[in-house]
């Protein structure tokens, strides 16, 4: 039990450190775009979804409407995430209202990677609060230090986050249907990325669920196609 906790704390610290650095890049970029100082702070607390924040910062000055639409599309995946995670954060209204706000890709991945249902709730809150805090600390550092924080890509952090997600979903890939659904979904998303606006390709990954349609119906489909 104690070792599980310690591992979780260590993992949380690793992802938090990366989050501070990327948050700092976000803060610095927002200022570099000439946006007022309060903009990155407000985004990191009120929106709290890194990808959409980077996207919106680039669009905000030119077209606030486009920034909102693109950001909402990118964040639409949180709806199926919420359904999958459900009441992990707790069943009280307070838990749901606060817990929903700290839901991110990383929190969902950490939570689903935790097999013990009683440990899940703790994982959700620990990772959620840690990431919210570190993202906002990072944003503040970026705003204060500006371009001095440097580019997070030169630190290789753009590789750290996909690798972290992969490590977290790997255990669930032992289940064959899940593996096929996930691989099909990932392939569809990558193929769709050059042609669809940001956010939609990842949602298209849900089409991977079609691989679950059983053989009898798929052979019926193919015979229909032949006819």
């Amino acid at each position: 039990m104690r070792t599980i906790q310690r591992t979780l704390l260590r993992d949380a610290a690793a992802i938090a450190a990366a989050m501070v650095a990327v948050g700092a890049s976000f803060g610095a970029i927002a200022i570099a775009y000439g946006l007022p100082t309060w903009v990155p702070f407000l985004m990191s607390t009120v929106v709290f979804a890194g990808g959409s924040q980077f996207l919106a910062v680039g669009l905000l000055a030119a077209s606030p409407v486009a920034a909102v639409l693109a950001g909402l599309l990118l964040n639409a995946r949180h709806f199926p995430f919420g359904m999958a995670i459900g009441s992990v954060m707790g069943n009280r209204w307070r838990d749901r209202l606060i817990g929903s706000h700290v839901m991110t890709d990383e929190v969902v991945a950490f939570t689903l990677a935790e097999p013990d249902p009683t440990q899940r709730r703790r994982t959700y809150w620990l990772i959620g609060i840690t990431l919210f805090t570190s993202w906002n600390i990072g944003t503040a550092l970026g705003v204060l230090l500006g371009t001095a924080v440097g580019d997070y890509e030169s630190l290789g952090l753009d590789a750290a986050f996909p690798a972290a997600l992969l490590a977290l979903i790997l255990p669930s890939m032992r289940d064959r249907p899940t593996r096929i659904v996930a691989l099909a979904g990932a392939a569809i998303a990558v193929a769709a990325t050059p042609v669809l606006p940001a956010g939609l390709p990842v949602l298209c990954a849900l089409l991977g669920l079609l691989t679950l349609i059983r053989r009898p119906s798929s052979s019926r489909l193919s015979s229909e196609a032949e006819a």
Partner: protein
Amino acid sequence: MMLAAIVILGLGTYTMRLGGVLLRSRVGLSDSLQRLLPMAAAALLAALAATSTLMAGAAFAGFARPLGVAVGAVLAWRKAPFVVVVVAAAATAALLRLAGLE
């Protein structure tokens, strides 16, 4: 205008987060849906990992990032600790860029 845009984006994102959570608690989930939802989440996360590994915008992200992620993935597959996976992926990509490979 900028303030309104950020607040609307924040409220919209929050609504989608909370909406999924509440929908699940409102409608009783059938057994098959309970089995399907973690798969859906896994597919979304796999797609996020794959697209953010390979693509920058609509174009290929270059070699440093995918190679870094690949090193992390192999380590994860060999059951290396999470911290090692994350640090090795970042270090690989950073060193490749330092060596001039984009």
